[in-house]
């Protein structure tokens, strides 16, 4: 096996520099690479382009990058939980490319899978279609969308082994598996780093071939955005 272990988040992100394009896993605050985010905050890298379904909240996740004005451009499907985001967007400090969520997921999968472009029906007849090729298949209209890759993909898994094999838990999986395939360098942080042979090969969600660096995160806050409970 090819071993991918690095010491910690600081080591993992050490070569991420100004102007880098990053993919960051997570849906809302679930499944985000908390330790990589913390390490990048310390580095205060600038002019990042970030591909992430959401943009965090004001004081957690990618919202912290926005506070420090580290982000030049966001590529996301939904960014509506963040006041600082709104301010930077309206003031022109922040560029935003909004992509339908399914198109975003598929563009990232395609990027990782060597598919340069594909047709999808999402966005036909809307401003998302502007400037894109439209073609009819079986009587329905589709847009041509392109594959997406990034300099670095930062993903968060539940368990991982030293060969980079990853297992996710619950809906914290979300965008992490396809982003892992689409980073030129993919950095995986895990709640538990286990020895080779500890994971059942049949249960692996992300094969280690996609992961260049892996480490066990120091701590996980796993903040909840909408705590909804039933009583009784």
């Amino acid at each position, binding site marked *: 096996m090819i071993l991918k272990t690095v010491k910690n988040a600081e080591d993992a992100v050490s070569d991420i520099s100004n102007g880098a394009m990053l993919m960051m896993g997570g*849906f*809302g*605050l*679930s*499944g985000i690479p908390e330790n990589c985010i913390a390490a990048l905050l310390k580095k205060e890298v600038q002019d990042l382009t970030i591909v992430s*379904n959401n943009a965090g909240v004001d004081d957690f996740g990618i919202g912290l990058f926005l506070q420090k004005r580290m982000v030049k451009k966001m590529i*996301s*499907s*939904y*960014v*509506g*939980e963040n006041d600082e985001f*709104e301010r930077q*967007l309206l003031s022109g400090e922040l560029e*935003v490319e*909004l992509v*339908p*969520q*399914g*198109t*975003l*997921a*598929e563009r*990232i*999968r395609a990027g990782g899978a060597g598919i340069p472009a594909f047709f*999808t*029906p*999402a*966005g*036909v*007849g*809307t*401003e*998302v279609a502007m400037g894109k090729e439209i073609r009819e298949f079986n009587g329905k209209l589709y847009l041509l969308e392109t594959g997406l890759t990034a300099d670095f993909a930062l993903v968060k898994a*539940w368990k991982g082994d030293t060969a980079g094999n990853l297992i*996710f*838990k*619950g*809906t*914290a*999986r*979300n*965008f*992490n*598996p*396809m982003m892992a395939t689409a980073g030129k360098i993919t950095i995986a942080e895990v709640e538990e780093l286990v020895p080779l042979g500890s994971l059942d090969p049949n249960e692996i*969600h992300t094969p280690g071939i996609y992961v260049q660096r892996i480490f066990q995160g120091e701590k996980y806050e*796993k*903040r*909840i*955005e*909408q*705590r*909804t*409970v*039933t*009583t009784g």
Partner: protein
Amino acid sequence: MLTKEQIARRIAKEVEHGQYINLGIGIPTLVANYIPAHLDVVLQSENGLLGIGPFPKEADVDPDLINAGKQTITMLPGSAIFDSAQSFAMIRGGHVHLTILGAMEVSEHGDIANWKVPGKMVKGMGGAMDLVASAKHIVVAMQHCSKDGQSKLLPTCSLPLTGIRCVKKIVTDLAVLEIDPAGGFVLLERAPGVSVDEINAKTAGKLIVNGEIPEMTFA
């Protein structure tokens, strides 16, 4: 005029046995509470879950288990977890039978607008564009008029579109309507105590009234 809960209860009658269903944020989420127990259906959450269970008890809250509205949820026996690409493969591939979502505007041709108000905040379309471009049956839950009394059922949408010619049925606080393939809102049911004249007055798009219009009943 229906309450949000009543809109949800009326929409619940649209649900059929054996359906996989995606419920949007807001009123659509409430529909889950009114689906008759004898119908076996499965709720899909586009962030990666089939088989959404009830909200958890305080002790069972799991940050790794949320719905598309970022609310903590539970799973059911037979639930399955998957990634976002697989989730939208299901949606885009037509495996989800019914999509229920909210709207800011619907046109008489079934166009829908629900993601952007120019000049105000742009929150993004999330999964809505994929859902409306893909689902076999789309039901919209919405208020008939805006807070300042403007009809939201229009000849053409004024806001940026989410999808075109996709909405099949609309349940508002005043009425149940379906989109005529040739254009127009076909009035199917009135909210209790609401007249056809009132619905007509509050529908800016073409309203089609065929014969007697019954009052709606609820699941």
